[in-house]
């Protein structure tokens, strides 16, 4: 398949792996964080780490939007959905995220009406078709997804559809990276920048990372060779004594992003003063809420919410996994009490969560397979 097969060539991967190895400084260990959950998924699915020398360690970051939703916000969604006149709509991954009162699937079993949609525009379509019901879209995601929510709000306003609202949980990537860099737990050497977030925001917002922290950041695509080439570009920067923002994903990402999408975002949303991230805690100016102009579409203003902070289960170490401090298999409940079928933590819920990706594609899956063969 064009634009796919050429980025999965095993022979080229081997060549890149050798060139990356040649760029490693003897005795030095490199920690490279992939911020995006989509990258984590590719790394495990295609065994990208197997093509890298031991000196390079890929550290998984907080870029899975489902994984960073705190349990209290899940409970808030359930509280909205339990109203008789409400249909709550959300993306598929959200359905199984555990809150303090169970997941959306559990709420449906208790009688709530929570429906999966592919796009917020599908939620708006449901609103058009059901004028006697209130349709609420449970919005999650980084800057890749936020424009689709913003566009939907603009269309709702243009069509004067008033039985539609948004429970907004959109987050922004830059404050999360800053929180990680400020964390005393972790020492990083470089970043693989999130490819599709960068399609919207561009590469310029990362420049402070290179300037202030002296760290390379390469915006990377999502195929295995994209990631290997991006690691190569990072290692070349180290070898040449540079620390810059570079764009490996030039076939999609423009350095200044998508100005129309950025304008729509700034029209429809404003930054929240604070927002709680699972694992990272409360981060200033790290999430979006509807701007005063579109406040009539804000479900948080339309409905009374519990707004209770719910602590993560004690056994769950998602916080450390999200910050890259722990590897998935180092969590106490990984693969035993916490599996994709019965997730305790959010990192095991979404396919982009580091734990689920490692469980499904990593060494753990290989070990399980060999055990099953032996039995």
């Amino acid at each position: 398949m064009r634009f796919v097969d050429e980025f999965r060539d095993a022979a080229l991967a081997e060549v890149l792996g050798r060139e990356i190895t040649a760029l490693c400084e003897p005795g030095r260990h490199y920690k490279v964080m992939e911020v995006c959950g989509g990258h984590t998924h590719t790394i495990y699915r295609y065994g990208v780490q197997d093509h890298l020398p031991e000196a390079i360690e890929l550290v998984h970051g907080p870029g899975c939007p489902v994984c960073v939703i705190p349990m209290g916000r899940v409970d808030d969604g359930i509280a909205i959905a339990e109203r008789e006149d409400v249909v709550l709509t959300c993306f598929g991954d959200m359905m199984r995220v555990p809150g303090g009162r169970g997941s959306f699937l559990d709420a449906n079993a208790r009688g709530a009406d929570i429906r999966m949609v592919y796009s917020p525009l599908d939620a708006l379509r449901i609103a058009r078709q059901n004028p006697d019901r209130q349709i609420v879209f449970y919005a999650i995601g980084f800057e890749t997804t936020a424009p689709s929510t913003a566009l939907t709000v603009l269309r709702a306003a243009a069509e004067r559809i008033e039985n539609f609202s948004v429970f907004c949980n959109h987050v922004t990537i830059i404050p999360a990276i800053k929180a990680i860099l400020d964390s005393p737990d972790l020492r990083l050497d470089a970043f693989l920048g999130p490819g599709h977030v960068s399609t919207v925001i561009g590469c310029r917002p990362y420049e402070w990372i290179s300037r202030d922290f002296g760290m390379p950041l390469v915006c990377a695509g999502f195929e295995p060779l994209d990631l290997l080439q991006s690691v190569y570009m990072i290692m070349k920067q180290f070898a040449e004594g540079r620390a810059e923002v570079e764009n490996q994903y030039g076939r999609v990402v423009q350095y200044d992003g998508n100005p129309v999408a950025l304008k729509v975002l700034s029209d429809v949303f404003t930054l929240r003063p604070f927002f709680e991230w699972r694992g990272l805690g409360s981060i200033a100016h790290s999430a979006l809420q509807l701007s005063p102009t579109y406040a009539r579409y804000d479900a948080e203003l339309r409905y009374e919410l519990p707004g209770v902070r719910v602590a993560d289960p004690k056994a769950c170490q998602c916080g450390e996994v999200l910050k890259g401090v722990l590897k998935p298999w180092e969590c106490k409940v990984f693969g035993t009490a916490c599996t994709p079928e019965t997730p305790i933590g959010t990192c095991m819920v979404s396919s982009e969560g580091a734990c689920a990706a490692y469980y499904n594609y990593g060494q753990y899956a290989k070990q399980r397979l060999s055990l099953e063969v032996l039995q």
Partner: protein
Amino acid sequence: MTHAERADPATGAACSTEPGCITCGDVAVVLTVALVDGCDARCRDGQGREELVATELVGDVRPGDRVLVHAGVAIERLTPTGRHE
């Protein structure tokens, strides 16, 4: 086409409660514009599957244009050479 049938042509992933939801994360797919209808366009993937895509964020599109689509919205138009300057 229902959301469950809209699979990522690269990974086979679809929006569902099962692993591989293409809309929730930083995942997007490249589709080709087949038919323009106002602010929307019917777009096809490599296997010929179609979906309706909102195009306001990428400006005017024409049949044959390739767009990066996330959650039913085109967030970037790709150049014919597959590379931005």
